[in-house]
């Protein structure tokens, strides 16, 4: 190492677990992160994992193909439960995406240094989750090839979308969210793509990364505009992410169905989205850091902070459940009171109790430092929360729709094989995209890690 390298962190000064392992330099972070993509041989584990995910993705394609041939009748939906798995899964996936934007935008504006090593893959997770989410309302329309009717365009039919409908708001919210997340992710990637271009040794890699890097050369004037644009994007993505799940909750709360028509829905949906999203980031981060030896970059501090965010948002969600429950009883509205009884004693009561267990009771373990710093506990907890959040959407949709105003309109819902195949298929797609992402793009922002090297070396001077 030459004398010019930044000073090495002295471990004895670090009281907290650092956000970056000690001893890292500009060169070492660059080498370590870009090596995962460029030089490290693809491991057998990667191939096996990818193949499994790819096969499950195949199941998704078959399920969608069969759906297009036969129609939505292959699913368990019918009147009165017109929404079923498709919307449960849509809300679940879109919620998962929210943590990525929260980490990349809100924590950026709050100047939280620990976001640096997790923001890139959290943003990728957002994109992939939004892609999975987008599939469901699309195929739920029954005739997905007419989905473009939802966009306003001058059609020969001379009609326009109904802008007073939450479902059209959803189209705009989700497509804006997908686009802005993609922009944010790509802008963050540009300098790293330039790094990969400059470090690639084979021609095809140089050409592909070179094209994607758009000719980025790290000019100081470019950086100035780049930073402005990045900051503005963060500022724009922050209200956006809060609006997306708010709009999703409008799909429910604008309707008059018992259990849906409540004003607490927007904040409690947003909190739930962040809750499940952080759970998913933990689910991905733990195997990722293990598989690629990134413990120096994704430290215990990151995991613990994410666990704390999970605990906090989980408590907001618990507050939401409590007040949903309380307001139904307090309103004296007989349909709302009846709905509460149905949640507690109806045919779907086990799902409600499982939801309380997964989302409220078990995560209380996160109050303990020992639990937050235990990687295995944390991993299992993140899975539990994901299951819990899925159950939440199931309870909201299925119990309300099966028990609305008139007993003659009551019904039952159970998913079919094709419901499960589509749902599990999207998980395969998600995991497959994550696998591809960590193999071809830097899973951690290299440029931002270099900044972190400067900052941590200054702190320890």
């Amino acid at each position, binding site marked *: 190492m030459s004398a010019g390298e930044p000073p090495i962190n002295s471990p004895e000064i670090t009281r907290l677990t650092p956000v970056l392992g000690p001893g890292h330099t500009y060169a070492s972070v660059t080498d370590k992160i870009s090596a995962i993509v460029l030089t490290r041989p693809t491991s057998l584990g990667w191939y096996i994992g990818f193949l499994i995910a790819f096969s499950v993705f195949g199941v998704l394609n078959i399920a969608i193909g069969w759906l297009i041939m036969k129609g939505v009748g292959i699913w368990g939906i019918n009147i009165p439960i017109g929404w079923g798995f498709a919307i449960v899964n849509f809300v679940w996936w879109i919620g998962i995406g929210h943590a990525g934007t929260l980490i990349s935008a809100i924590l950026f504006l709050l100047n939280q240094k620990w976001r640096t090593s997790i923001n890139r893959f959290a943003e990728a997770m957002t994109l992939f989750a939004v892609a999975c989410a987008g599939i469901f309302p699309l195929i739920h329309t029954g005739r997905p090839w007419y989905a473009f009717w939802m966009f306003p365009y001058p059609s020969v039919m001379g009609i326009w979308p109904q802008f007073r409908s939450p479902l059209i708001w959803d189209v705009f919210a989700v497509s804006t969210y997908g686009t802005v997340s993609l922009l944010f992710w790509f802008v963050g990637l540009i300098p790293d793509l330039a790094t990969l271009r400059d*470090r690639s040794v084979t021609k095809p890699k140089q050409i592909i990364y070179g094209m994607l890097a758009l000719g980025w050369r790290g000019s100081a004037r470019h950086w100035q505009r780049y930073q402005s644009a990045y900051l*503005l*994007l963060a500022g724009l993505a922050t209200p956006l992410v809060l609006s997306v799940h708010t709009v999703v909750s409008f799909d429910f709360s604008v309707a008059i169905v018992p259990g849906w028509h409540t004003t607490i829905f927007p904040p409690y949906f947003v909190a739930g989205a962040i809750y499940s999203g952080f759970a998913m980031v933990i689910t991905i981060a733990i195997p990722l850091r293990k598989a690629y030896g990134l413990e120096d970059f994704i430290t215990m501090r990151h995991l613990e902070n994410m666990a704390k965010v999970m605990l906090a948002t989980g408590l907001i969600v618990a507050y939401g459940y409590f007040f949903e429950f309380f307001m139904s009883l307090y309103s004296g509205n007989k349909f709302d009171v009846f709905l509460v009884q149905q949640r507690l004693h109806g045919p779907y009561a086990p799902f409600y109790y499982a939801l309380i267990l997964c989302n409220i009771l078990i995560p209380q373990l996160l109050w303990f430092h020992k639990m937050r710093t235990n990687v295995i506990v944390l991993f299992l907890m993140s899975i539990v929360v994901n299951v819990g959040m899925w159950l939440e959407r199931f309870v909201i949709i299925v119990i309300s729709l099966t028990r609305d105003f008139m007993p003659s309109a009551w019904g039952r819902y159970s998913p079919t094989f094709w419901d499960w195949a589509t749902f599990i298929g999207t998980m395969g797609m998600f995991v497959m995209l994550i696998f591809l992402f960590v193999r071809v793009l830097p899973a951690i922002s290299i440029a931002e890690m270099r900044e972190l090297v400067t900052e941590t070396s200054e702190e320890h001077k």
Partner: protein
Amino acid sequence: MIEHRPHIYGVIGEFEKPEQLVHAATKIREAGYRYYECYTPFPVEGMPEAMAMRRNDVPLITLIGGLIGGLGGFGFQYWVNVYAYPLNIAGRPYNSWPAFIPVTFELTILCASLSAVFGMLALNGLPQPHHPIFNAHRFRHASADRFFVCIQARDKKFHLKETARFLQGLAAHHVSEVHDD
């Protein structure tokens, strides 16, 4: 065969630490150079001040984009619901503006974000597949762990030997000329 004589794009110098580059940039500006550029693997604090950069136009472009998105989005919904395709639903007003807010909001964000990103790229002149600075021998380190400054030949004060000596005087390593093609 015509003898090919490369044009000089400028003289490049290399530093190992961001502070050294900030210092050098300040000195270069004070020496009266106008056309020079610094290249760093990450945004270096103090650089805009050292190079006396003016404020950039990305925020303005973003604001304009956001205004277009917001006003256009609302105006469009107004036009659809009042003129193009009015639907009388239980006598409610055609211009039911509260219901137009979510889409207006989303379009504001969308247009502002697109303007921020494409405005930034346009002002930076990107994508630009090739640039003379890539001819510099060690420039691949500019995206890893080295900090470069290049004084361009089009500067009035530029003199190949003098400028090179000047950069060496600022403790730059590997001072060399950069060719134009």
